[in-house]
């Protein structure tokens, strides 16, 4: 199952050794890039959905003085990290956030949406908790292959599932939930560099091949060449009033 396999990958010591506590391609460089497109002021209320260790929550608080909250489906990572003393964290699913309507200025969701079993519900939740004019910052792995229609869910092939989704699929999720306009940037270079670093890191090949197998839509096996199809994106979108919703 992709969720369990990816969760295990996120929690692996080898991946953590390569990425540091951010546990994702691009690390805080991409977080900063997303924030720069939003223009949040000091004290902005930001929720990090799928916060993992809570590293981004601490970063948002310490570097930007935002009022940040972290939410993760698993308490394991942040409990190990020891950050619970200084940052606010809660255990919940992305599809059911324990927050009131319109209570946030920003939602941050980094390298997580592909792990969520019900991405449509999750994006609807992001929209619900955001105020009108608030921003969603998404970064995640996606399928860079030429669009062959809106992939509606996991693809199963040869006994293994892939949660790799296309750009049109992701953008449609957001538009349907009242977001727009969308700023999409391809940052696949970060994913390639992470894969390369995993290869170079002694003992990380197992995790790397797992990554290849999980994200290869054909699930054909362990060739590193298969990582050429997955890409990595940064997407920033603003919650609009209903009549302003973007229908592009």
């Amino acid at each position, binding site marked *: 199952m992709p969720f369990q396999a990816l969760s295990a990958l996120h929690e692996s010591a080898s991946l953590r050794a390569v990425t540091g506590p951010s546990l994702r391609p691009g690390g805080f460089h991409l977080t900063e890039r997303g924030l720069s497109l939003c223009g949040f002021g000091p004290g902005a209320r930001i929720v990090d959905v799928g916060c993992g260790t809570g590293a981004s929550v601490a970063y948002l608080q310490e570097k930007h003085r935002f009022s940040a909250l972290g939410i993760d489906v698993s308490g394991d990572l942040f409990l190990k990290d020891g950050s619970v003393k200084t940052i606010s964290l809660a255990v919940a699913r992305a599809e059911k956030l324990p927050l009131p309507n319109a209570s946030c200025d920003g939602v941050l969701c980094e390298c997580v949406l592909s792990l969520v079993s019900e991405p449509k519900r999750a994006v609807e939740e992001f929209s619900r908790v955001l105020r009108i004019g608030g921003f969603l910052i998404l970064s995640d792995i996606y399928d860079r292959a030429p669009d062959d229609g809106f992939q509606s869910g996991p693809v199963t092939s040869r006994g293994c599932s892939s949660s790799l989704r296309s750009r049109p699929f992701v953008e449609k999720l957001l538009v349907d939930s009242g977001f727009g306009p969308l700023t999409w940037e391809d940052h696949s*270079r970060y994913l*390639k560099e992470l894969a390369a*670093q995993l*290869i*170079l890191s*002694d003992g990380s090949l197992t995790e790397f091949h797992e990554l290849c197998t999980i994200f290869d839509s054909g699930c054909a096996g362990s060739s*590193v060449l298969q990582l050429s199809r997955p890409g990595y994106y940064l997407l920033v979108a603003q919650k609009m009033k209903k009549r302003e919703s973007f229908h592009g």
Partner: protein
Amino acid sequence: MNFSQEAAVWSCTSCEGELSLIKVGFTYMKGNFEVDLPACAACGLVLIPESLALGKMAEVERILEDK
């Protein structure tokens, strides 16, 4: 043979010191990477094992070139 084993069977050609694994940073195709490599404990000369040069680096190159 892994890099620890490589370190054990080689000695430094410059000062004949023993090799041990150290973290080496390098730039390749505009990417910055780190890898633990055998290096001389005395003078710091780094050994690049054949398996890295011909094996892992070839895979890294293919990924970065998007082939």
